[in-house]
């Protein structure tokens, strides 16, 4: 861009120089021609004056002897090369000339002048340019004689050549200065800041958003630099916001993941405790009986002591494991559901599970608050939405809504409920358009380690954890399904009554609750 401008400017300058140069040259040529005409005039006047002087001298003296004296010193006139006087017979009477000039002789021009008594003048272009003037005059016997004068034009030509050279050289010098200054100015005012901009842009492209362009000018370049700096600043801000956002999301995801893992271990421990509780009880019970009925000094007693101690130990281990993994009691506070769902949706969007499934939250922002533990509710919604996403075909929509009645139609619908919701409660519906489940499958969904998902995909603990959470919250979870059509999960969470939820929304929610 700057190169283009520079080239254009230089071209225009050269054109300008050429035009003014041509004009000046033309002017010089005219000047030369005028000088030559002037010189011709001068020489003619000189020749005439000379002719008059010679005639008077010849008339007065009657001889030509004095003529040589007349011509002496005449060559001091600048540029005069030759003066010759021809008598009517064409013979040279007297002559004087500068060295190296062809001696005078009668030729056609002089002959014509003598015969017709007409003055003549020529410009001789050969060699060094000169002017030849022939002036006839009356001789003694009234016959015609002539004087020839040759004047050099070399001075004029030299002047002209020198002036021409001056014009060209001065134009070239001006052009050169112009070009140099244009290039320097462009470089200073455009190329330098533009180069700084390019450096900055390159740095930004490489990820260094701390780049600012240090240009303190008020023209367009300065404005561009300021815009650039502003852009870099807002990019930097945006990137920081993105970074913070993704960090928050990662943190939430880690938290959720940790909770999920702990819950999974807890479920597993509960399952193990369940399975070994009875056999352990049989062993410890029998040992207790033996302990009671065997004599204290029996030789085999110590074996029994070991059995008793070890069963106690197993019991303690399982109890400790359960204490460690038992879901903590929820810290229930009034919570808005929509922001929780939005955060969970964020986590889901960050996973590859989304696979083009859209999440539609059909919830008003002024939904009444529920009484719950934000972290556990997030876990609850994450598990339910993950299931819905996994069940949905690509490009389908998972809908979340609130309302007293199920979204799925009653016909062909099977269902299962866990927990019992304290009234009044807020029902949240999560509906997918997946393959659905029949009654037999549905009966098992809340059992730990029962999963309809592909091996390695589900933990089989998602819904058991959901059940745990809703029970701990005094809520319920209902699962409705129509095989081949989809599944609806209704979570009912107790409302936070008397809290800062908008009263109008609370009224609506209360109606919904009564409507159930």
């Amino acid at each position: 861009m700057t190169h283009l401008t520079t080239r254009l400017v230089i071209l225009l300058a050269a054109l300008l120089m050429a035009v003014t140069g041509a004009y000046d040259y033309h002017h010089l040529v005219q000047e030369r021609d005028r000088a030559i005409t002037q010189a011709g005039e001068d020489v003619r006047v000189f020749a005439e004056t000379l002719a008059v002087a010679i005639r008077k001298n010849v008339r007065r003296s009657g001889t030509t002897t004095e003529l040589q004296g007349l011509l002496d010193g005449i060559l001091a006139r600048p540029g005069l090369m030759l003066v010759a006087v021809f008598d009517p017979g064409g013979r040279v009477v007297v002559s004087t000339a500068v060295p190296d000039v062809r001696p005078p002789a009668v030729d056609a021009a002089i002959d014509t002048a003598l015969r017709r008594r007409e003055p003549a003048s020529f410009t001789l272009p050969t060699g060094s340019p000169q002017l030849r003037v022939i002036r006839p005059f009356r001789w003694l016997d009234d016959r015609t004689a002539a004087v020839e004068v040759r004047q050099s034009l070399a001075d004029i030509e030299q002047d002209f050549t020198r002036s021409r050279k001056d014009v060209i050289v001065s134009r070239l010098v001006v052009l050169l200065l112009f070009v140099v200054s244009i290039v320097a100015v462009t470089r200073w005012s455009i190329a330098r800041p533009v180069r700084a901009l390019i450096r900055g842009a390159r740095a930004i492209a490489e990820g260094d958003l701390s780049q600012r362009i240090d240009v303190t000018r008020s023209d367009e370049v300065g404005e561009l630099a300021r815009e650039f700096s502003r852009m870099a600043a807002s990019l930097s801000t945006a990137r920081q916001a993105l970074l913070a956002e993704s960090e928050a999301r990662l943190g939430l995801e880690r938290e959720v993941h940790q909770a999920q893992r702990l819950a999974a271990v807890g479920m597993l421990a509960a399952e193990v405790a369940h399975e070994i509780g009875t056999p352990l009880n049989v062993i410890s019970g029998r040992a207790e009986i033996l302990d009671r009925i065997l004599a204290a000094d029996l030789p085999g007693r110590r074996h029994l002591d070991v059995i008793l101690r070890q069963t106690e130990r197993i019991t303690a281990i399982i109890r400790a494991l359960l204490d460690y993994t038992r879901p903590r009691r929820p810290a229930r506070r009034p919570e808005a559901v929509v922001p929780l769902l939005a955060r969970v949706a964020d986590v889901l969007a960050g996973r590859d599970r989304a696979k083009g499934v859209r999440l539609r939250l059909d919830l008003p922002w002024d939904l009444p608050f529920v009484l719950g533990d934000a972290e556990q509710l997030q876990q609850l919604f994450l598990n339910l939405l993950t299931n819905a996403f996994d069940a949905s075909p690509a490009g389908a929509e998972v809908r979340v809504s609130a309302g007293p009645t199920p979204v799925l139609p009653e016909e062909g619908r099977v269902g299962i409920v866990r927990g019992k919701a304290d009234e009044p409660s807020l029902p949240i519906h999560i509906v997918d358009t997946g393959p659905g489940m029949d009654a037999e499958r549905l009966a098992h969904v809340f059992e730990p380690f029962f999963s309809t998902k592909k091996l390695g995909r589900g933990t089989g603990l998602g819904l058991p954890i959901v059940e745990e959470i809703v029970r701990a919250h005094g809520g319920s979870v209902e699962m409705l399904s129509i095989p081949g059509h989809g599944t609806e999960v209704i979570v009912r969470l107790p409302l936070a009554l008397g809290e800062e939820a908008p009263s109008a929304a609370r009224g609506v929610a209360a109606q919904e609750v009564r409507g159930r």
Partner: protein
Amino acid sequence: MPEPTRILVVDDDADMRALLVDELRQEGYEVTEASDGAEAVLACRGQTFDVILMDKNMPGPSGLDLIPGFRRASPASRILMMTAFGDVSSYVEAAERGASDYLFKPFRMDEMKLAIRRALGLESAAPG
């Protein structure tokens, strides 16, 4: 001679059942055993039990599901549930349905006997 105290033990695990029956008979109770819900219901016809000691997890109807039936058939019976410890939610549910106490497996025999006596009103309900 007063009426002997009658106890029904319901557990699908034969060894566990045998342990409980042995221990309770040792204490002088009259014990009937059942290995599942159906047998338990059958046993309830014809005689009334003072205490029903029942496992929560059994094939077929679970202990929780059986509670309302027993409550109707013999309102005077005290129901004691047994389950693995850590199963707090079913504890709450059992209490709601009318069980009078809960034992977490594995429990000590003394614990079990104390719970029976408490259910019979022979001991203070306050935990010892």
